[in-house]
């Protein structure tokens, strides 16, 4: 169970997030929807534990994975090493199986820079799911892809989520992505941003 209860988050004197609280049980996919600049990425960085500077509490499991907007790979290590270095307990065979699942097994010994952007994103997905995460965080993972590729990637992500069954939190500004992938959609609105409608104030934590 992932439990998020943020009281407030500011950059200097500018409040970015108000009270934002929600829970995600294992196996559920939750989308955070909201316009650009509303504070989605800020929320996500807090939930992921990258940004420790906020008021509130977040309970998260140890085994986490993240997929960023950009592939965020190690360009100086091979495709296969990009998976095995992040998951030292994973055997090379298991890593290869994962690469095969996302369709880039033949690129295993190339450097990421030798593959296309689409393949690099597949690698980022493979890296995320290879560790059998309990909690997966995705930050606009399909942004800046052409519609066809985005659709393939969405399908692939759906399959992998169904297989692994982690709690998933993903951030997007595209409603169709959210409705397709998520069991539940939370909308982030306003300044400072809160979940809309004002779910928290009714006393119930979504």
């Amino acid at each position, binding site marked *: 169970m992932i439990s998020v209860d943020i009281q407030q988050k500011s950059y200097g004197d500018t409040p970015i997030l108000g009270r934002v609280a929600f829970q995600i049980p294992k196996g559920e996919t939750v989308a955070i929807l909201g316009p650009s600049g509303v504070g989605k990425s800020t929320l996500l960085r807090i939930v*992921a534990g*990258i940004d420790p500077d906020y008021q509130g509490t977040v309970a998260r499991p*140890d085994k*986490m994975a*993240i997929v960023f907007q950009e592939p*965020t790979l190690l360009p*100086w*290590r091979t495709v296969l090493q990009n998976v095995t*270095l992040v998951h030292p307990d994973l055997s090379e065979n298991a890593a290869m199986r994962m690469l095969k699942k996302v369709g880039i097994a033949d690129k295993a010994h190339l450097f990421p*820079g030798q593959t296309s952007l689409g393949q690099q994103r597949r690698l980022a997905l493979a890296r995320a799911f290879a560790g059998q995460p309990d909690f997966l965080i995705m930050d606009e993972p399909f942004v800046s892809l052409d519609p066809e590729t985005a659709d393939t990637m969405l399908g692939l992500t759906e399959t992998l989520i169904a297989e692994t069954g982690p709690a998933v939190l993903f951030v997007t500004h595209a409603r169709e992505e959210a409705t397709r992938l998520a069991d539940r959609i939370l909308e982030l609105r306003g300044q400072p941003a809160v979940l809309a409608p004002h779910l928290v104030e009714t006393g119930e934590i979504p």
Partner: protein
Amino acid sequence: MTENRLVPAFSLIALLGLWIVAAAISGDPTVLPQPWALIDPFLQEVASGELPYHLFQTLIRVLWAFALAMGVGIALGLIMGRSERINRWLDPWLVVFLNLPALVLIVLCYLWIGLNETAAIAAVTLNKIPNVTTVIREGARATSRDLDAMAQVYRMSRWTKLRHVTLPQMAPFIAGAARNGVAVIWKIVLVVEFLGRSSGVGFQIHLYFQLFDVAMVLVYAFSFIFVMLAVEWLLLQPWERRVRRWRAA
């Protein structure tokens, strides 16, 4: 392409030609001997074992100072580049040490530690650390925050992160500091030997300086220059190519 490769060769031959002409004009082998006049003394020094012995002594000192300066400099540079607070405290020290003449550090080390090997290597190391730190700090400042975040969420171990995430980003800076380092360190080692050691190329140059033997001074100087060029071509450049492999790909 061939022209580009030939230019350095011709340029060096021209320099040699200049030397021959200058030696001919001066007409005094005690001031400037002809290049070929160096061959006999060189062979004699090699045969007697003097040259290999002193070369080896100097090389050991260069290696020690290089390893220490790079180790400490990389550690300091990383820390200062990644923490603005620590940087504010240490930066003034860096400026002081960067502007301290090499000679002052050498003399102080000999005075404080004594005329021994520790002092010699400490002096060279202290001379080089600030430069390495400055270069590495720039590299550390330029490291990717996104990759840091990735490493953090996936809970990569400290060592794995250093080895596979941080240091590869720093490779161009480390390579730069290393090449620069070797070039500067061996020159300072010679000065250190000149001033206070009884072995090494610097010591031999001191000896032949007092005997006013230009030929032997040149023999030792060139021997060491060739060794350092070999280090550059056979070790540093291949290593640099290796760590840059992924870029060329």
